[in-house]
């Protein structure tokens, strides 16, 4: 994809060392990468939590990069949290102020103490996700052979049909020879009864061989 800014930005390399995410162009090919990318190895981590964990684990030497990454996320988080909380706190403070001069001064205290008491508003409580265990590999290992059993039988018949139709001679003898060479025919003396209608063979009911699988029917 032609990038009109490719040449200009290509010289600067990745954007300011702190961000490591959002849009920045790769070095050689002017392809635009998007998302939560690690600035060092450019792998896509998809969420901010995973990005910080990745940088911590893989690039633990780059301490200042890590710090600036964390700062950005904490600023963003604070910004979002404070926007939600600003309005109720403002109105509460203005309401309780005239009351405070009245009887009890505990009007303001509950709001301040309340946010101290609220366990959810404790700052800086970023939590990592717990353990997980993936069993998909084992599951597939058990499932696939079973499915392949059905799939491989069907495939075998299809391949045989293909081979039979391919290069079949016109005359009846040649045809019979061609068919018998591709698919093994069961010996007719071993089969006494027809497998589908269970009636015996005789002068009136003759044995016929299936061309694809080689078994006998009437």
């Amino acid at each position, binding site marked *: 994809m032609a990038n009109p800014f490719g040449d200009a930005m290509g010289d600067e390399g990745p954007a300011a060392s702190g961000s490591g995410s959002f849009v920045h162009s790769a070095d050689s090919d002017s392809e635009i990468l998007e998302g939560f990318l690690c600035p060092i190895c450019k792998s896509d981590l998809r969420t901010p939590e995973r990005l910080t964990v990745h940088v911590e684990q893989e690039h633990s030497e780059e301490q200042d990069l890590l710090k600036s990454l964390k700062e950005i996320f904490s600023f963003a988080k604070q910004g979002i949290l404070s926007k939600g909380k600003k309005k109720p706190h403002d109105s509460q403070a203005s309401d309780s102020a005239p009351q405070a001069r009245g009887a009890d001064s*505990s009007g303001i205290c509950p709001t301040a103490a309340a946010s101290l008491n609220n366990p*959810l508003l404790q700052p800086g409580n970023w*939590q990592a*996700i*717990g353990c*997980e265990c993936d069993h998909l590999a084992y*599951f*597939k290992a058990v499932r696939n052979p*079973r*499915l392949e059993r059905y799939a491989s039988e069907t495939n075998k018949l299809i391949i045989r049909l293909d081979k039979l139709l391919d290069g079949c001679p016109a005359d009846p003898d040649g045809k019979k020879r061609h068919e018998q060479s591709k698919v093994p025919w069961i010996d007719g003396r071993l089969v006494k009864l027809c497998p589908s209608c269970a009636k015996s063979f005789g002068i009136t009911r003759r044995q016929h061989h299936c061309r694809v699988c080689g078994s006998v029917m009437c």
Partner: protein
Amino acid sequence: MNVIRAIQLYIDKMITDAGPGMKMLMMDGETISIVSMAFAQSEMLQKEVFLFERIDSARSNERLKYLKCIVFIRPTRDNVLRLQRELRSPKYGSYYINFSNIIPRTDIKALAESDESESVREVKEIYADYLPVNPNLFSLHIPTCLQALNWNPDALERSTQGLVSVLLSFKFRPAIRFRAGSTVAQTLAKKVHETINKETALFSFRPPEDGAAPPLLLILDRRDDPITPLLNQWTYQAMVHELLTIKKQRVELSGVSGVPKDLKEVVLSTEQDEFYANNLYANFGEIATTIKVLMDEYQKKAHDQRKIESIADMKNFVETYPQFRKMSGTVTKHLVLISELSVQVGRQQLFEVSELEQEIACRADHSTQLQRVKRLVADGKLGAVNALRLVLLYAMRYERHANCDTLGLLKLLQERGGRSHIVPRMLEYISTVARQELFNTVKITDAVKLTRNLIKELKGVENVYAQHECVLKGTLEEVVKGRPLDAQYPIMGNEVPFRRPPAEVIVFIIGGATYEEALAVHRYNQEGCRIVLGGTTIHNSGSFIEEVLAATTGVPFKHSRSLQQFHQAPAGSA
């Protein structure tokens, strides 16, 4: 260390890993509670999950192949069979299977063999197997876990699995300590220890750096502290639970008069209700003040809403209306709750009863207390439940006292129609340790404890209704200060005990935890510790009495022979 957050992270990941597109969530009876306590339905809808079904309900036969089905179930035998049946005739386009705990390989094999249409895309274990009640409190919702003073095997299984999943969701490999002298605690500790050793691959976390102590899993027994669940509480969450019963974050208000129809069942969740989150541990007096503040704010907003004169005002109104509606819902809900609490306080004379309870629990003043108890039990206006509570506390405290008059009190109680057979059962239930320590029948020779008691007597008390300190508080004090615990809380396994206090502590109470203990844990957390409390259930006095009854069925009466005549339940009552 926030258990609600841990579950939210797991469920979030489970849903986002299924990719974009319309999804539905298939759960069983227990996981549906877990999910509903972590997220509101609106939040789930935002994540594109539009349909919620149970794996064990009879469903219509419509095929919805355009939906992705996220299955989140507990790894029980029945669930695996039902899932197999579903996979044989799949109704949905693709299946993403998540088990809430460790699943044995044989079950995965069985599932793989029944997936003939190749519609399963993921098979995972995520360890979200407990109910997150508060950020520092979890429960396993096992109403009665003991029988004949020993484990009920299903309850033991469920508790082990629940504890293991808590450990895995915080990535802890803890040192396990259990209460010495308690067989149930020892059994549970052993089982958890065995599971950790068996699943070495799962538990191979980086050990804590620079010589810090490993996290601590402390397993305690409810029998060591039977007083705390019986007391009347005065902090908001505890009070609502005691008087109205909070069941999985829901409160049934259908028995209450004067309640609008849409508030028959009320949801109390710290995640969605900011007022509730701020006032969980506020006591009754503070609540009245804060709700007044909330009301004033609401009135002011309502007043602002009325002044719609210009287009800008109208635009503002439409934008802020949903918030306003939400606020009005919250305000009504809490008003109804608080007014009901006040009504109950008045009706049951809780001020008087609670004061006497706290006195019996904290001080030894036999004659006056006996007089007061007699008077209150004989008083016709006092409910049978409260009378029973007072008699229980008296009986437990003055069991060995020379002038103990439990017999007389039980007679009074029986005349009133109270359930007097519970008292001998309770005396069987409390452990020997509780007898010795709580009620000071053994001389205290430890100098530290003596001085502490002396200081407590001298200092007096600021709030008569909050003087009781649960036993857990003392235990946590010792843990946090790093005092040696080996005598009372031996360590399971042969690890060298650390001398420094642990950075993180998980406390599990077999037989149920209470909100009062959660408050103690919260206070420690505010000072910088990281403690999480859990129990087989969360008790109020009613549920605790049921637990005692179930736990002591079939146990011979050793401690209450003198109360022989009260051993049998009166005909027609439980």
